[in-house]
């Protein structure tokens, strides 16, 4: 980790000094324990702010959308998956971005840590690779790093960057195939039960749009939610409007969602968006054999048209 930090700083300084990029987007220390925060470096002298640790969970690809600058970006597997899709969808020009790829061990969910350690006032966290050791100034507590990972990191199929210009750190071993076991139980429930569960989760939604705005693939200049002619979705918290919003969003991401989990992490209300998204991803994988973000050459399945499409999905129960 510290090694990665040094390498990221080094590469950033080099890219800026050589004038290859105008800006490098990476992470710096957050203002709170268990947090890192995106940072934007334009001066080689500022590279000392850059860090790499277990809390660099934001998907920085979000910041690349329709940028008119040459940008260097520190990118994990999931960030690069998003970049791949953004390039395909012409939101990012490959030649305008320099990817400092960082193989990822999975990012730690502060909520999990707090849950585990209870109400202590965490002041320090050490990531030993296998363990997380937290201190409140008086005592040290430790937990398995693996148990503290974000949900998206636990099922991540591509921790190493899919594409990169510079690779920082050792490649990590990829997990075995993702069989979508985490949504198997959900999928096995009846339609009514699934509906009830999702509706229950959505009832906490406050329509802050953080899921949308954190998503690297939600880049429409005018989101359907903000559209008034026609008014697809009411603006309030009527359950039907909330559900419509989330269901439409997930459908807009079908075949494009790279499962980075940014939406889940952004939600202030802990709404289980993960289940809905993962279920959609499972369908996309099954029906189209597609895992978005992994194949730069392959068009998104719902962005292709074949007049002879058998449309056999219509026959599914």
């Amino acid at each position: 980790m510290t090694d990665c930090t040094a390498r990221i700083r080094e590469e950033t300084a080099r890219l800026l000094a050589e004038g290859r990029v105008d800006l490098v987007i990476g992470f710096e220390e957050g203002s709170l324990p268990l947090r890192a925060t995106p940072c934007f470096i334009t001066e080689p002298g500022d590279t000392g702010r850059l860090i790499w640790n277990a809390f660099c969970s934001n998907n920085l690809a979000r910041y690349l959308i329709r940028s008119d600058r040459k940008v260097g970006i520190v990118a994990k597997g999931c960030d690069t998956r998003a970049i791949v899709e953004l390039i395909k969808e012409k939101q990012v020009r490959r030649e305008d971005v320099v990817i400092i790829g960082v193989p990822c061990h999975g990012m730690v969910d502060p909520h999990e840590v707090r849950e585990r350690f209870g109400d202590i006032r965490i002041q320090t966290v050490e990531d030993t690779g296998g363990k997380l050791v937290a201190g409140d100034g008086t005592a040290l507590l430790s937990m398995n790093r693996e148990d503290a990972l974000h949900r998206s990191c636990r099922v991540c199929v591509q921790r190493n960057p899919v594409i990169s210009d510079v690779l920082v750190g050792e490649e990590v071993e990829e997990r075995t195939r993702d069989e979508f076991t985490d949504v198997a139980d959900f999928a096995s429930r009846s339609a009514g039960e699934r509906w009830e569960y999702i509706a229950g989760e959505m009832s906490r939604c406050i329509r802050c749009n953080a899921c949308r705005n954190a998503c690297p693939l939600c880049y429409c200049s005018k989101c359907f939610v903000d559209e008034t002619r026609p008014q697809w979705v009411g603006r309030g918290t009527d359950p039907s409007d909330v559900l419509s919003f989330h269901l439409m969003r997930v459908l807009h991401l079908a075949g494009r969602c790279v499962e980075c989990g940014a939406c889940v992490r952004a939600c202030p209300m802990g709404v289980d968006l993960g289940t809905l998204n993962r279920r959609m991803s499972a369908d996309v994988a099954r029906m189209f054999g597609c895992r978005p973000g992994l194949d730069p050459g392959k068009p998104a399945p719902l962005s292709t048209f074949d007049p002879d499409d058998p449309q056999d999905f219509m026959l599914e129960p």
Partner: protein
Amino acid sequence: MTPSGPTGAVLVLGGGISGIQAALDLADSGFRVYLVERRSAIGGVMAGLDKTFPTNDCSMCILSPKLVECGRHLNIEVLTNSELTALEGVPGAFTATIEQQPRFVSTEKCTGCGECAKVCPVKLPDSFNMGLSDRKAIYRLYEQAYPHSYMIDSAVCRRCGLCARKCSAGAIDLDMQPRTLSIPVGAVIACPGFEPFDASLIANYGYGTFPNVITSIEFERILSASGPSRGRLLRPSDGKEPHRIAWIQCVGSRDIHRVDNNYCSSVCCTYAIKEAVVAREHSGGNLETTIFHIDIRTHGKGFERYYERAKNEQGVRFVRSEISRIYQDGSGSLILRFPENGRISEEVYDLVVLSVGMVQDRANREMAERLGLHLDSHGFCETRTLSPVETSVPGIFAAGAFSGPKDIPEAVMGASAAAAEASAMLSHSRHTLTQRKSYPPEKPLLGGRPRIGVFICHCGINIASVVDIASVRDYAAGLPNVVLSEEALFTCSQDSQRMIRERVAEHRLNRVVVAACTPRTHEPLFQETLREAGLNKHLFEMANIRDQCAWVHQGEPEKATQKAKDLIRMSVARAKLIEPLPQAFLDVNRTALVIGGGVAGMVCASSLADQGFGVHLVESAAELGGNARRIHSTNDGADVDAFVSRLVESVSGNPSITIHTGTHISDVSGFVGNFRTMVENAEGIVEEISHGVAIIASGGEASKPDGYLYGVDPRVLTLQELEDEIARGNPDVTSSRNAVLVQCVGSRDEDRPYCSRTCCSKAMKLALALIEANPLVNVYVLYRDIRTYGFDEQFYLEARERGVRFLQYDPGNRPTVEIVEQDGRKRLRVVTTDLVLGREFSIDADLLGLATATVPSAGAAELAGLFKVPLNEDGFFMEAHIKLRPVDFPTEGVFVCGLAHSPKTIGESIVQAKAAASRAALVLCRDSIEAGGTVSVIDGPKCSGCGVCAALCPFKAIEMDESERKAVVNEALCKGCGLCASSCRCGAADVKGFTDGEICAMICSSVARGL
């Protein structure tokens, strides 16, 4: 019409697909057309087919729009129940006499409701369904027939008058008399089609005796959803589902023993495969299908793949054997006896389908006689390979199966080619006899409140017997913005149109909703009425309360009525939002660009020039001529060299044609009507050509063979090289003792899973030429299937008669060649195993000819990219629709012909080139290209520039503005299909007239019944 010019009208004889295509091409290019059909409706054979190969498109579904178009065309007069009785005059000024039998039903008044047939007491077998079902004395030929009206079969009608009393439209007139018409026309296109071979002539198959032995045409009806069993696969004897079906090929074709037919009907192999595949789909795969055949002739574009898929994936069994006899067992099943591997086998089938060929019947022969046309020995209209649509009579052109067996695309191309000939002949009289409709100026809407008129149709009792029209009318009257709700017995009738026009004026209606039948057939009619009423035609909306209410909920009148209200409420909700859509008109550059200076390109260029258009002909080689320079003569003995020279001369000397040899296309921009193409020569000098259409005739070439010692031993030649040598009279070749021709070298293999189509006939020609040169030569043809389709079959027969030995090899065990020393001479030893005899042959040859594949020319892919048109898997250009648009592309204004499209003979290239010229002329003779209307529109600020719409647009009407990162629609190319709108996540793409807002309004109102 100028007194000196020819008559600007054309008589088209025959209302099948050929006649329809010819009529549409001609009428659209400025000629008046009389389409004469013997039967009571146009549509021909295609109307009776179930699916079409190789795409398995529903035949009726692709034909129906053409029927409607033909029927509606202002400049096509369809004369059904009619027959030409005489043709007098000279080319350019004929007078045709047409005898029209009475229909007894007014086509203007009849709405096709079908109540008359319900009361008609006379029942007889329905000939359209091959007698497999019944019809009444008053009937309609088939469901989607045009004219849509019923007719009375006077031969069986008892004149009881029940129908006339029942008809609420008053359409029936039992006193209708025959009439004779005298029509001046400038040219005639004869395309009366063909008759299926009468299978009862082949006694040993028991057709006519055994109920479960049927013809392929009957089987099409059985498969058809509109057929006697509504698409359920049942056999005639007992209505049971068959489990084993056999097809017997070449019934009436390639048969000089039982009948004197020495030609191949060309289509039966592929249609049998299609029937087998479709039958298996119908039965859920629980069906054994066997095709008994001599050769499998799947020589058409995409057919070989179709065959391979049927054989390898779809479980269709192919047995190479001739059925010697059929017996019937007690259950009605059939025992087929046939030789197999030297023994006689017997197999039992539930149903036997005879793949009957195409023949000419007496009626066609008599008609030909009246026209003075020469017929060949089989009664087909005589034409020449190098003038394939010209008959023996100037001014009369032949198309379709009248001049020989053809499949649908060939018929369509022939029809267009014939149209091109007629058009060239009459080009000075274009637009002299055609009508153009004028409309009052459109009233501006001024943004006022929507004033919607709702017109509800009884459709006789078609709708009214189920739906409570009065309650629907009252309901509609109370809907928001509806200022008038009115019912009509037949909303589509002429007086109703007048009524609608009056109401628009009286009530200041600015939107019209018609609740009746389907917009597919009737929307244009009502839109026309709106235009006549001074309203933009898009201010119209239709609710289909017949199909979707009265028909599907026939037993539930309350629900049907409720649903009719729901549908009307939705329509009104949309109507409120509809806005007039402006139409823009763009000028057309009346020049064509023809790419490729081979026969196809030259023929096309000269046809266009003859039709009065300027042409730029671009050829990459230094001189014109292309592959034809190496053909020398056709099978029927025509002098190709002379033909090509003449053609080059005439093209070069034509002031309308500008020739650009030694150049290639470097850039293309623009769109239909207004292309700009850069033509670059070897020195890099670029010339810009402005043109309205482009025809790709970039040709093909022979593949270089792999193996067989080609390039190693000088005696191993491709067939093309062999032809050159024979023509040159090379003694090394003409004095050969043992000549071996190997077929399918590079075709029908894994790399090129298609048939090169021409090689079998060419092999016959060369074998016969070798024998001609040296009667002592032994010629061996090593083949897989002999595909001498059509009249070329006679050359196969002749080759056999002249002693050519045919040895069939297995593609898994191809012939081998090695050089062996014998008597101090190096001989080419060819070893092959004959499948029929099952033994190995070793031939010491001094000449080896290889039938190489025809492959697309090298620049095809680049050209495809420049014009944004597709290529198929084999690298040939992919037409818009393999059946009905064989020379068009989805991209408007670009056409294809010749080898660029697929392997074909020189004669076929000529036909296709003329067809392309005909289609291109349709664009060039227009005053302007209409743009706008129901087209896509991109809301710039909402567009995120992801490019999905541009990638998906099948018409290449959307481009990305890379600097703005926005999609841009070219309205001249957009067809309003809506693919962009449905794929656009940002909601930036919308189709005018079907906007998200309008659709949403309908959806919202659909769930708002409470109102």
